[in-house]
């Protein structure tokens, strides 16, 4: 009995020690980072370079033309960064959802008995994952710029729906002056310079969401394929023995078990998708990095702006990791309910 109590105590001591070491390590890293930043800012100041984060409350002086957060030039820099961050999320979240759906379908297709289907899916994966994302984005942007009609000659797809190089415009519910709740629809109207009003998906937004989706789907497909292959053949035979159709086998037997392998790799994929959204700056979509670039150009606070970019992507990555790890804990042992 006495021995067992000793063992418990010593294992508690071990846990405590492990925690202490980790906390100390984190403190050391944070202190090191703070020292480097502090020292750099000090020296910049000594050399006559104004530094610090005080600029965040000053008016930005530039405007951001699209996104969920209205932003005009008289508003402060911090709000510009917030609008940029929201635009990053606005691109990354739909791209993540679409790429998981598309990637899963292609991953399953890679293992299909049908030769043509399998070939198409294999070709998709090999093509998309071997061409740099930036090149794909520029190609998409180029295609849209050349294939869509001019903004002054938009195509009328449906009542209130217009398509042109200016983007896709649709009717959108808006609130009356000063109100919070939508009271009526605003319809896009054709004007001198193309369509205005309503809600518009800009070509830049479509480019970045589609580009991220197509690119990430190739990687998701491989992850899904590996996950399915990791489920032992006996499980399939068992499913057949129970008289399940092949669709049922996939849905009820294989995918739930494959998720254990899929989810951790998928987490990495979503992290990289989110970070890759920063390439949107190359195709003119005003996300976080674009806002930071503009800010650096206007006040030269490169150090501070890059610190903000790093902090924001770190935060986003930690949030994704946290969410995906929670999900992983749920599916790891029990499968997909």
């Amino acid at each position, binding site marked *: 009995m006495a021995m067992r109590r000793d063992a418990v105590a010593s294992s508690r001591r071990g846990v405590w020690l492990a925690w202490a070491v980790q906390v100390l390590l984190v403190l050391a890293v944070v202190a090191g980072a703070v020292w480097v930043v502090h020292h*750099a800012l000090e020296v910049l100041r000594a050399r006559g370079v104004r530094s610090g984060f005080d600029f965040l409350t000053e008016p930005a*002086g530039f405007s951001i033309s699209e996104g969920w957060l209205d932003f005009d030039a008289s508003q402060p820099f911090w709000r510009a960064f917030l609008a940029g961050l929201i635009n990053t999320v606005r691109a990354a979240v739909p791209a993540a959802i679409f790429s998981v759906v598309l990637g899963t379908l292609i991953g399953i297709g890679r293992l299909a008995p049908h030769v043509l289907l399998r070939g198409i899916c294999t070709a998709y994966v090999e093509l998309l994952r071997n061409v740099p994302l930036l090149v794909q984005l520029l190609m998409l942007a180029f295609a849209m710029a050349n294939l869509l009609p001019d903004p002054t000659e938009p195509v009328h797809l449906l009542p209130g729906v217009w398509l042109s190089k200016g983007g896709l415009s649709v009717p959108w519910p808006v609130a009356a002056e000063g109100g919070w709740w939508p009271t009526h629809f605003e319809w896009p109207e054709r004007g001198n310079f193309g369509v205005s009003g309503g809600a518009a998906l800009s070509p830049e937004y479509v480019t970045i969401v589609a580009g991220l989706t197509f690119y990430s789907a190739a990687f998701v497909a491989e992850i899904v394929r590996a996950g399915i292959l990791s489920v032992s053949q006996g499980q399939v035979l068992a499913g057949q023995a129970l008289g399940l159709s092949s669709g049922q086998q996939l849905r009820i037997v294989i995918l739930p078990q494959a998720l254990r392998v899929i989810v951790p790799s998928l987490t990495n994929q979503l992290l990289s998708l989110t*970070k890759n959204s920063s390439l949107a700056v190359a195709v003119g979509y*005003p996300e976080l990095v674009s806002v930071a670039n503009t800010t650096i*150009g206007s006040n030269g606070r490169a150090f501070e702006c890059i610190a903000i970019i790093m902090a924001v992507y770190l935060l986003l990555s930690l949030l994704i990791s946290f969410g995906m790890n929670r999900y992983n804990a749920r599916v790891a042992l029990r499968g997909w309910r």
Partner: protein
Amino acid sequence: MNTRFRPALLAAASVIAFAAAAPAFAGKTLDAVKQRGTVKCGVTNGVAGFSAPDTQGNWSGLDVDTCRAIAAAVLGDGKKVDFVPLNSQQRFSALQAGEIDILARNTTWTLTRDASLGFNFTTITYYDGQGFLVPKKLKVTSAKQLKNATICTQSGTTNEKNVSDYFRAQGIPVKTVVFESFEASFKAFFSGRCQAFTTDASALAGLRNKEAPNPDDYVILPELISKEPLAPLVRRGDDEWFAIAKWVPNALIEAEEAGVTQANADELKANSKDPAQQRLVGTGEDLGKLLGLDKEWSFRAIKAVGNYGEMFERNVGPKSVLKLPRGSNNLWSKGGLIYAPPVR
């Protein structure tokens, strides 16, 4: 690593490196340049007339010539320049970090940049203003008719902010599409994504001539919405180097006034009796020693690139693809704004 961050991270890393080494180079740029044997000159990735490489990698342009003139004055050879292409976002950290000795990259002199980035602007080498390029078929004759139009521009420039300011003051709503690279922004415009393109008027002229599918399909609107005095800049805290970077361009302007050219400099050196010319070709009083240079500093600069007027003609004026009128960039004595304090 994400490629998008690489330039930014390099900039950040160099700021840290520079921070660690900072006290070492105050006042030492001239020594460093002499020891290295080249002037490191920050330029654009390619803006016709100001700094652009040809197919052999030879740089030319007004900003390029300013650097060559400085190299000729300091090192005796206008070819001893390392050109460092920088985009709008990289340029300031590159200078702060000491990666370049001078930034000659059609950069607008503003209070913020002058007073808060640790820089000194030298001599204005081009008086520019921001304008708009629009397709002729829109039948727009004034920027005030651009209500609800979409305007393409480049991020990280004064242009982006000026557009906001101008249309806000006019109460005219417009949309901007902002690209990271200059090339992406004008390509988007020429593909029809935007109804107008905005940048400095000098660059608009070059774009229309070089990049437009058909130059006659586009017009530059009459409004210039900003003042864009373009000047090279150097780091603060090195007054010796600042003086050289200021007085070499001034000497080229003075040379135009005094009638000293690339072609007649040798002859004037042998025969001129005009004190103003003698000072410039190195036969008069020795002004070079005041700058830490020798007596023939300005003679070599003029021999390397010609006087200001010649530089202008060759790069942006009638003899170039841009064919810009002299306008504000004429000498003060001929109705322009180009004015150098006396070289004496």
